[in-house]
């Protein structure tokens, strides 16, 4: 029942958005462009345990509508249709204003610009491995989108080709129980915040430096807000992140780390959680790219720590599609996995 309501709301929102696109044609508008991405995935888990699982998944069939309404106003929305329809949602839907030099103003629901993977690299036709970085995705809950205001931009700086980039946002924020798993804080029903706590917004952003001729891209991110789902409680969540990438002659090395300082209800108490990944990929030929990734997390109490070494390759049938096959070595015995995916942009 709840899913039906969500689907109806999504459908109405998208219909309204598309109606706006359609009615805007003629005002120097370039109209609506429908894109997106879709994939088909196969997973084998718990290899060697005698109880392995093998299953197929239509993880994504996500449609993205982009509309240039006027020269300086556009709208962008992604309908998230995941796991063969088990999850239907609006991943993001926002309106942007681009009429100010080096400053873009966006309002609505957007993927929170923290680090690189969450906003830029998570689509399966872009992500160089089948899965998202293991463990890391639990500290910075991914893909994390939220409702609020976002300003963004970039500008060239002194060195040849160098640019600085910035993002700053204010959003409703992550929310969950005292000391809870941050990954579960996404997409919480905002009505639960009734009772006078809705004025507690989360703020944050990312500052980056790109040196394209040298192939470097580095950045630092921050998120800060009250995460408590109890209106009488104030529990701060501070996320600090750093990301770096190097890209040259077919070689790409990138990594991210995020650390969370999560207040708990006990006096002076807080939890420190850290996650990260580093991966390297090399385009051997135009179509073939091996990749290896180390990822993991450190949680309060070593029993919650985990890590993964994953390696595999991608075959690119075209510039917008990918076939990937990965082998996943997880902590502990008899829980390795194999993951394969065909993903294409639409």
């Amino acid at each position: 029942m709840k899913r039906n309501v969500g689907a109806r709301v999504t459908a109405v929102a998208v219909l309204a958005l598309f109606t706006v696109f359609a009615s805007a044609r003629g005002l120097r508008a370039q109209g609506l462009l429908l894109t997106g991405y879709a994939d088909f995935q196969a997973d084998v888990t718990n290899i060697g345990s005698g109880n392995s699982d093998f299953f197929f998944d239509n993880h994504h069939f996500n449609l993205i509508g982009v509309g240039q309404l006027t020269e300086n106003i556009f709208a962008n929305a992604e309908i998230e249709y995941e796991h063969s329809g088990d999850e239907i949602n609006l991943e993001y839907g926002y309106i942007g204003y681009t009429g100010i030099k080096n400053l873009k103003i966006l309002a609505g629901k957007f993927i929170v610009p923290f680090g690189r993977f969450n906003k830029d690299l998570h689509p399966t036709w872009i992500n160089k491995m089948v899965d998202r970085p293991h463990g890391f995705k639990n500290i910075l809950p991914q893909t994390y989108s939220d409702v609020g205001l976002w300003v963004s931009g970039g500008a060239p700086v002194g060195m040849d080709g160098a640019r600085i980039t910035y993002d700053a946002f204010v959003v409703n924020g992550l929310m969950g129980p005292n000391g809870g798993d941050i990954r579960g804080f996404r997409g919480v029903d905002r009505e639960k915040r009734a009772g006078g706590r809705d004025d507690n917004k989360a703020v944050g952003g990312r500052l980056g430096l790109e040196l394209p001729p040298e192939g470097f891209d580095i950045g630092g991110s921050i998120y800060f807000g009250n995460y408590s789902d109890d209106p009488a409680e104030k529990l701060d969540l501070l996320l600090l992140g750093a990301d770096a990438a190097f890209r040259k002659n077919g070689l790409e090395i990138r990594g991210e780390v995020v650390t969370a300082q999560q207040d708990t209800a006990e006096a002076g108490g807080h939890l420190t959680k850290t996650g990260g990944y580093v991966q390297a990929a090399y385009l051997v030929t135009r179509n073939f790219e091996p990749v290896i990734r180390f990822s993991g997390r450190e949680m309060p109490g070593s029993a919650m720590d985990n890590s993964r070494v994953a390696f595999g390759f991608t075959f690119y049938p075209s510039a917008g599609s990918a076939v990937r096959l990965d082998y996943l070595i997880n902590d502990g015995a008899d829980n390795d996995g194999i993951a394969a995916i065909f993903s294409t942009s639409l």
Partner: protein
Amino acid sequence: MKTLTKILLAGAVMAISLPGNLAAQRSGVEMWSQTCGNCHRIQPADRYTADQWVTILGQMSVQARLTDEEEASILAFLQSGAKKVAVAEPVRSEGTLVASTDPAFVPDVQPMDGEDVYAKQCVACHGKGGKGDGPAAAAFNPRPVDFTDADLMGSKADEELLEVLKNGRNGMPGFAAILSPEEIDAVLAYVRSLSAEEK
């Protein structure tokens, strides 16, 4: 926390207030190769029409945090090689017409010599040494031509190379709307010199 927030805000203010011409402006093809390729495999210019690229770049300029000049530069490049089903409106950057589908259009820019043109417009696909191994080469099938292959280059008349330079072929965009006739002649002479050096 407050210090980090101040650093972030200071960076944002600095970025907003910086003049666009502080650093040398990269060409559209360089930006396309480097900035778009920073997240995903670059998409060939002929995947979309000129109008569709307007819509896509409007949104991707947010994703890639492009300045107006950078966006216009990439757009001009992509439209020059776009799928040919519609005529695009001219692209303006800071009030200066930088590209047009009008064959009579002459860009209001100073002509560059052949090596400069090559460095700005050709290196991303054909590579620094002209071997067809630039960072964007992977987006093309067939791969960009190796200008150092003396046999190959010797088999091609100037008229054929000029035709490709002006109107494009196999996914390579035409440069008639971006370069002046003098610059096209100059870059042709430069790529000819690359195979001569290999002899």
